[in-house]
């Protein structure tokens, strides 16, 4: 019995590792998820039926009930929720995991005696505190992403207060471990402290940084699970938890990088909240940044891609790279076309000269009037260094100097990626609301550099 359980745990652990590994590649990711899920199922069944003999039936019934209720709830939420609400859902689920850990800690707290080893005590206390932090923190993150919690609280010296608070919790816990526990109510105090800190920690953080926070909290939940694993000397919890913990940290760092932040600035404050990021415009809204790798995936899995070249392509001399991109996508089975606006660039036929230089096939260059109806079918439009020629103000804003000029209707596409160096205006010197469109993501950088990165990301897929 015991051996079998051990082996089941071992297998589960391996599925976790393999699953995580597979999750790292677009092609294998789904398989990775199933693998890990399978392992998890095994571990749960093993835990129920093989850990202990002679358990009263009522307990089994209760467990089954709990699993049923929770399972159905989890499943339904996951299936029902809109695609766009997924990140907040992850946060919510994560919070539940944290809560579970905290509750376990609470129960075990009751079993602590004065003769308990310090290790055990430390484990239990950390479980409660960390679980509580992730629970409340995740809930706040969920609320924020959800739109329920809007105001960004920003007291003066907020960071200092925050950091003092967590140091206080740690000191108190350390004291408890060394001095021993006098009163079981202390467990609830710790729980409360953790909950408060979780709120304090996440509340001041701006919505844009939320994914980083969720990832961090997720990593914490992993650590809580690992600690619980130590408590029960349970390898699958230990290894699984540590895996999530370490992978989570790396992931958090990677996400920070992708958003041009440091993990330091995430943990120790000056979190996005107060800084008004570039690209936030009072009337037009916020822009969304993207990375070459995201753009690459998006294009890789598209069926129709339309490239809109503009003056910036010429400035960057990126004609060779864009051709490489087009060839690569074509080889991957994507339909690629270029939409040539009659006044793109700075002279008549500027884009033609440019693209002819890199041997782009003439048949791929489509005139404005012919391509405009096709944007409906485009999964991705890649706008490279163009601005005025895709500015909807030409349609919408009679006051605009370009009003009345025909433009490329890129807005009709499913998704728009805009590459330029900054939020600077083009020839006509006017703002472009396309950049603030919810379907648009901005890929900032010199066209040549950005496209080169895009190409190498694509090659790796």
């Amino acid at each position: 019995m015991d051996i079998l359980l051990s082996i089941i745990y071992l297998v589960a652990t391996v599925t976790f590792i393999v699953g995580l590994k597979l999750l790292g590649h677009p092609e294998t990711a789904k398989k990775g998820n199933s693998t890990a899920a399978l392992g998890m199922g095994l571990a749960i069944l093993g835990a129920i039926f093989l850990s202990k003999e002679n358990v009263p039936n009522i307990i089994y019934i209760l467990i089954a009930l709990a699993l049923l209720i929770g399972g159905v709830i989890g499943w339904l939420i996951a299936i029902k929720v809109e695609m766009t609400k997924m990140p907040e859902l992850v946060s919510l689920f994560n919070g539940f995991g944290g809560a579970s850990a905290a509750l376990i800690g609470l129960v075990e707290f009751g079993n602590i005696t004065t003769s308990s080893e310090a290790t055990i005590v430390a484990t239990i206390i950390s479980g409660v505190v960390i679980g509580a932090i992730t629970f409340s923190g995740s809930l706040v993150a969920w609320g924020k992403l959800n739109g329920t919690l809007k105001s960004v609280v920003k007291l003066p010296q907020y960071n200092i207060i925050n950091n003092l608070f967590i140091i206080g919790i740690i000191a108190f816990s350390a004291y408890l471990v060394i001095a021993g526990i006098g009163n079981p109510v202390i467990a609830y105090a710790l729980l409360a402290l953790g909950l408060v800190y979780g709120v304090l920690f996440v509340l001041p953080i701006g919505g844009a940084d939320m994914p980083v926070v969720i990832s961090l909290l997720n990593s914490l939940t992993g650590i809580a699970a690992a600690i619980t694993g130590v408590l029960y000397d349970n390898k699958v919890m230990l290894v699984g938890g540590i895996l999530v913990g370490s992978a989570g940290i790396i992931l958090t760092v990677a996400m920070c990088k992708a958003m041009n932040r440091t993990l330091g600035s995430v943990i120790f404050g000056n979190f996005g909240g107060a800084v008004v990021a570039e690209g936030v415009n009072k009337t037009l809204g916020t822009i969304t940044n993207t990375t070459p790798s995201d753009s690459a995936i998006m294009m890789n899995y598209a069926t129709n891609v339309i490239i809109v070249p503009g003056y910036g392509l010429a400035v960057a001399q990126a004609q060779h790279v864009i051709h490489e991109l087009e060839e690569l996508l074509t080889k991957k089975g994507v339909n690629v076309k270029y939409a040539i606006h009659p006044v793109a660039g700075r002279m008549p036929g500027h884009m033609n000269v440019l693209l002819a230089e890199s041997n782009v096939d003439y048949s791929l260059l489509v005139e404005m009037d012919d391509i405009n109806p096709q944007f409906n079918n485009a999964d991705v439009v890649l706008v490279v260094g163009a601005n005025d020629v895709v500015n909807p103000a030409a349609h919408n804003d009679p006051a605009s100097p370009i009003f009345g000029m025909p433009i490329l209707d890129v807005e009709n596409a499913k998704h728009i990626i805009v590459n330029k160096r900054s939020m600077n205006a083009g020839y006509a010197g006017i703002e472009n609301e396309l950049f603030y469109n919810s379907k648009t993501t901005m890929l900032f950088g010199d066209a040549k550099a950005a496209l080169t990165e895009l190409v190498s990301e694509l090659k790796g897929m």
Partner: protein
Amino acid sequence: MKIGILKETQKGEKRVAMSPNIAKQLISKGFEVLVEENAGKNSSYKNTDFTEVSASVEKREVVFKNADVLVKINPFDEEDLKLVNKGQILMSQLFHMSNPELVKSIAEKEATAFSMDAVPRISRAQDMDVLSSQSNLAGYKAVILGANEMTKIFPLMMTAAGTITPSKVLIYGIGVAGLQAIATAKRLGAVVEATDIRSETKEQAESLGAKFIQVESEGEESEGGYAKEASEDYAKRQKEAVDKSLFQADLVITTANIPGRKAPVLITEEQVSQMKNGAVIVDLAAAQGGNCEVSKMNKTVVKNGVKVIGTTIAPESVSTNASELYAKNMYNFIMHLTEENQFKWELEEEITDGTLIVKEGQIRKN
């Protein structure tokens, strides 16, 4: 409404203001199109090409007599005006600022005249802008013309019989024509340098692979996207900066213009005498007096081994494309001015206001 297309009578002109394609589009919009006999001959359009799309091909007099709107490329001349009737609407380039007499004569005829070269350079007027569409072709053709006249080839070639160094091409004025000239020369493998009084052209020139020759400048040298007349001081500094390149150039193309004025002189006779034996200058500003002191309109002057070609025939010589583009500009212009085949006469509207020079004998602009 009947639109009459006249055959161009100016010497060397091969274009025509209409193409069969565009005639068809006009007709489908409900216009009638009358084309003068053989108007399209030099642009490779036969009379039958026009009749096939239901335009009618008529004798000159018939066109003048029947048309409501008369369309040309070059300004109406004395001969044309004799045949113009009261109330007819004339459309062509007029260069009204430099041709006050012409404007007066039109007014005397109590006709109405739109000038195509006066289309304002605003975004929505781009598709009616004949200056742009023709300059563009001029830039291309100037390079081809130069290449044809040169005794050297453009590209670098390392061959068994020795290495041919690439030709050096220098371009003055980086407007529409200048940019296309850069692009064309660069394509053929030349080493291209270019200069302009407007500093924003630097990035544009570089985006096409040319080296920009920067002339130190103090004041504002441009106005609403066009160049202002250069100060003497600027002219001096320009010479200093450009001379070295000029004296090594195999082909020089000049395109500098200041709207409504004589073209600035950028290359003096003295400078020409210091140029390489065998070099060629193509002066696209010759019609406005020329950027090169030596150049004569529609002539090739050889000075100290340097061929100076003064021309405007650059776009004319690629007449098929030039006519097509001009015709398309005309189409867009007419569509802009009319509604259900009738003129709207929105005199406040920027494009109408800018191009309408004479209205029923009334001179609106000078």
